[in-house]
């Protein structure tokens, strides 16, 4: 699936003890960088990607030949201005864009499949922390990311409280809700119900559970959009036909759109990675790590927080983002918060939403000026 030559990797020699109890070492982390690190090494921003993202944040992704997942936000003169900042992003462990994951081989040269250890958000950020040493960065200027990226942001600053000056979690949560877990379970069931999944050993059986993975993606994609957004974009419009066909083809544009989203997704994503990463999200409960007191997660940091949510995001709704604000306020942390008006649903953070992009830019640039 990967064209190795376009992927930069850091081999982490240091053993990493995972939450599941297993230890991994000599494992690869695939990363990409944008902009340049200044001589003081104080302009670095670590970006964390969401469930199906990867290290190719902006510009053309050399593997998929499509625009990077955060091209609206990251680039020269954009909200995260690569003329000014050094942006680092890495593929999460468990992923399928070069970082250690279920499509890799175990020490016996057998593809892991579901024998890969179950990883957590905590494991992901502990693995990515090695990038700071790699680049000789003592303190990042900022860490940011949306959705699962936001969870990593929260976990990172909790684990490494003095390693970032600013912290920008976007459209996220400190604890995966029952509804979130339910949607992820739906996706996993779709994958494992595909007879080509073969208990996760599809690679050695030369099959691919593409149908199951596509359904998982279709279901998830609906949760990223809002009812209003869907209605305005598709309504009941028909797909290249004058009238209903009284069959089960894609009569409606929304059906065709979802089928397309499912089909392009399977070309770039590994089914087992989807299982592992959704599991990591489901296991995420930062408050639980601190005996139910979320504030304790941030008690040791002096970082400046800025939290952003979106009005039409029902997957990680404003209230769940505000819970993080409340936890920070209750310990007197420096925290700002804004809810952006948008009808583009959870996906708003990935799209051209000017109020969001200007808030992000203003926060970063003004904070950087105060450096």
């Amino acid at each position, binding site marked *: 699936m990967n064209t190795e030559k376009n992927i930069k990797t850091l081999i982490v020699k240091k053993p990493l003890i995972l939450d599941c109890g297993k230890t991994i070492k000599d494992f690869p982390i695939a990363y990409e960088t944008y902009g340049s690190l200044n001589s003081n090494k104080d302009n670095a921003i670590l970006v964390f990607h969401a469930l199906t993202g990867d290290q190719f944040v902006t510009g053309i992704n050399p593997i998929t030949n499509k625009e990077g997942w955060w091209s609206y936000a990251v680039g020269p003169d954009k909200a995260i201005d690569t003329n000014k900042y050094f942006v680092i992003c890495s593929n999460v462990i468990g992923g399928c864009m070069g970082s250690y994951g279920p499509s890799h081989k175990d020490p016996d040269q057998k593809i892991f499949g579901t024998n890969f250890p179950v990883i957590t958000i905590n494991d992901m950020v502990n693995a990515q922390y090695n990038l700071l040493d790699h680049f000789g960065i003592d303190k990042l200027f900022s860490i940011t990311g949306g959705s699962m990226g936001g969870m990593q942001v929260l976990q990172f600053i909790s684990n490494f409280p003095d390693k970032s000056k600013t912290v920008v979690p976007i459209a996220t949560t400190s604890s995966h809700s029952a509804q979130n877990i339910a949607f992820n379970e739906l996706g996993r069931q779709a994958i494992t119900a595909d007879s080509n999944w073969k208990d996760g050993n599809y690679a050695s059986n030369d099959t691919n559970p593409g149908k199951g993975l596509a359904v998982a993606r279709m279901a998830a994609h609906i949760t990223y959009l809002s009812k209003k957004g869907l209605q305005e974009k598709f309504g009941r419009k028909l797909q290249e036909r004058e009238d209903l066909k009284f069959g089960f083809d894609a009569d409606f544009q929304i059906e065709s759109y979802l089928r397309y989203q499912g089909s392009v997704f399977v070309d770039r994503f590994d089914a087992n990675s989807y299982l592992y990463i959704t599991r990591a999200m489901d296991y995420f409960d930062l408050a639980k790590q601190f005996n139910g007191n979320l504030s304790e997660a941030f008690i040791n940091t002096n970082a400046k927080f800025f939290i952003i949510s979106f009005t039409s995001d029902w997957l990680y709704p404003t209230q769940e983002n505000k819970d993080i604000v409340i936890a920070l*306020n209750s310990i007197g942390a420096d*925290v*700002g918060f804004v809810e952006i008006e948008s009808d583009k649903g959870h996906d708003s953070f990935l799209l051209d939403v000017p109020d969001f992009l200007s808030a992000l830019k203003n*926060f970063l640039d*003004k904070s950087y000026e105060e450096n």
Partner: protein
Amino acid sequence: MKNEFQVIADLIEKDKKVLDVGCADGTLMKFLKDNKNINIRGLEISKEKVQECIAKGLTVIEGNAEKDLKQFPDKSFDYVVLSQTLQAFLNPELVLDELLRVGKKAIVTIPNFGYWKVRFHLLFKGTMPITKTLPDEWYNTPNLHMCTIKDFFHFVKSKDIKIFKSLALNNLNSSIINESNLGVKNLFADLGIFLIEK
């Protein structure tokens, strides 16, 4: 910057921690941050105003004072400022209690309904008063609980809230309000500024 903000700023010592409730575009916050090295936070309900604050590099939380003050711990700010907004809340008494819980001290300013121009307007025109500090029509005003300087003075006393300083503002002049000149100040000031503590 309006004179009211200058008077408020003069009440706050350097290097303090301050929460500006209903901070609008952050003008006062910016002044306090730049001139008095204040560790300043804002709470603002309008998304547009929040964006303006962010553009000024200010730490602001989008929220509603009636619901969102409760997340701040007791006495977590040296001062909490509430400028000309108390009368716009559904429950001003509750908000006042919250200001005094969150702040060691609170600075509250109120547009004075006892101002002679307001009285004059109602008396002779017979319509709801419109002045510089009360610019809206009766049907679109955000103000639900108008009061006079005298009302507020008595209200605060009745709640055993300590008044450190109360000032009457009329255009560019500010003067001390006390028990003995309350009637006069209530007539000639269009704004009252109170530094209080509980």
